């Protein structure tokens, strides 16, 4: 079964990480690289991407003529998607376990961030014995 793990960060302004000491940024990045490698080695990683920060995001709608109307940053968002992993695992428990590992990524001073990771199951085909 596949799950998407979403890492959310506070939505105002650029990523907090930008203000961390260099050593902490390096530790965080090294953790993320190692984390993806570990998931790849266990044969569970389907995809993982980091997204650019809230300050660069646009909100797009189609206007009456079908042309795009873009809004700039959206300060009203409390939470903002910073990146995601899609994993293919044997059980929901395993997905939660992986999410907890991501949550504990090191933050300032190397302390675990314990940030919220949203876990959502990817929709699939129907069960075999459907009437």
């Amino acid at each position: 079964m596949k799950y998407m793990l979403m890492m959310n960060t506070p939505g105002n302004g650029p990523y907090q990480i930008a203000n961390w000491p260099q050593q902490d940024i390096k530790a965080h990045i090294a953790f993320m690289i190692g984390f993806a490698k570990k998931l790849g080695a266990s044969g569970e990683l389907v995809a993982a991407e980091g997204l650019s920060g809230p300050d660069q995001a646009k909100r797009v709608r189609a206007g009456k003529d079908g042309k795009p109307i873009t809004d700039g940053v959206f300060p009203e968002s409390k939470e903002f998607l910073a990146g995601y992993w899609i994993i293919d695992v044997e059980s929901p428990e395993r997905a939660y376990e992986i999410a907890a590992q991501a949550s504990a990524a090191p933050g300032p001073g190397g302390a675990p961030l314990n940030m919220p990771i949203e876990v959502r199951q990817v929709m699939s085909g129907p069960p075999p014995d459907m009437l």
Partner: protein
Amino acid sequence: MPPSLDTRTQHLLRELMPQVLGAVIRRFRDFAASEDAVQEALIAAATQWPHDGLPENPRAWLIHIASRRIADHVRAETARRHREAIVVSLVPPEDQIALAADEATPERDDALDLLFMCCHPVLSPTSAIALTLRAVGGLTTFEIAKAFLVPEATMAQRISRAKQSIKESGVPFQIPTAEERAARLGSVMHVLYLIFNEGYTATSGPELQRSDLSGEAIRLTRMLHRLVPDDTEVAGLLALMLLTDARRAARTGPSGELIPLDQQDRALWDRSAIAEGVALLTATLPRGAVGPYQVQAAIAAVHDEAASTEETDWPQILGLYGLLQRMSDNPMVTLNHAIAVAMVHGPAAGLERLDALAKDPRLKGHHRLDAVRAHLLERAGDHEGAIEHYRRAAESTTSVSERNYLLTHAARLSETRK
């Protein structure tokens, strides 16, 4: 253009592959090295056979070439390491070649041992599925990855970890004892059944069916049936697959939407697959121990032989589900039993069964319970209740096509209400 293998020879190579791999692993006891060597032997066959013609004993030829490749690798490796003893358990390469040349053991054991190895209970189901498709089915890692909608690198890693687990557990050295055999055969059947269902229902991704996987499961189960013709449950499993797969063309609409059994165009059902499945089952049922696969096949056969839902022999299906219920404590079986009760004794009787079933913690919040309740409420004329349960089921299913199907039902009932 160089001459290439005709379809019949390609087919032969695919059939021989598991036997050859099983034989080579049995001697060299190294899964990964044996697999590489067999791949090389297959390539050699593809280049040499079109010129030289088919060898007298193609299987022995392939085993011989594969064994020689391994021997060559071992020799090169030994030279590189200044003739240090590298793998203690290896029989000297020369002996291997001699053994391979007069290959005399019955072929059935090798392919069966390979299946036992790939479906060993030390492996997780997903690992066993991937390894079986790769090593026994001969599918490429790319093909398997595509079927399971994961990147090729992910699948490659999964397969190599499965091989590693086998190596560490010492599985290749253990041929199941007579007592273990039944249980191990059960694991093999379970893995084949999972592959079939994966193809039939596509547990991940938007596509409803990936029939190539179902076809592969049927091919491997046919092989297993040839290897153990006396096992009635293997025959039952093959019949179940044939009788289920027969409805494939009718199971989805033009845009891939799900069509339930009672609304399928039965003219689209594959009559020859049904005939084969029924004949297999008819020959098997009187022969002894009746197990769950045979009973499920019998249920599928009753559906397949009916001209419509109304003309289906529901009392017989009810009896068969009763039998299945006594064989396994599975709430899904009990749920299907309740549907059969409703078909025979009316929706109220079915709903009564559901009330009892709702107390089962394994079904708590399960969308199937809501979906079945919605169906039965609709049949009982309680449209409001049906709408509520269709929607509730739609919220909790993780299947895209099933969600669409349930929401459409709820919407249809809402419209007739107005």
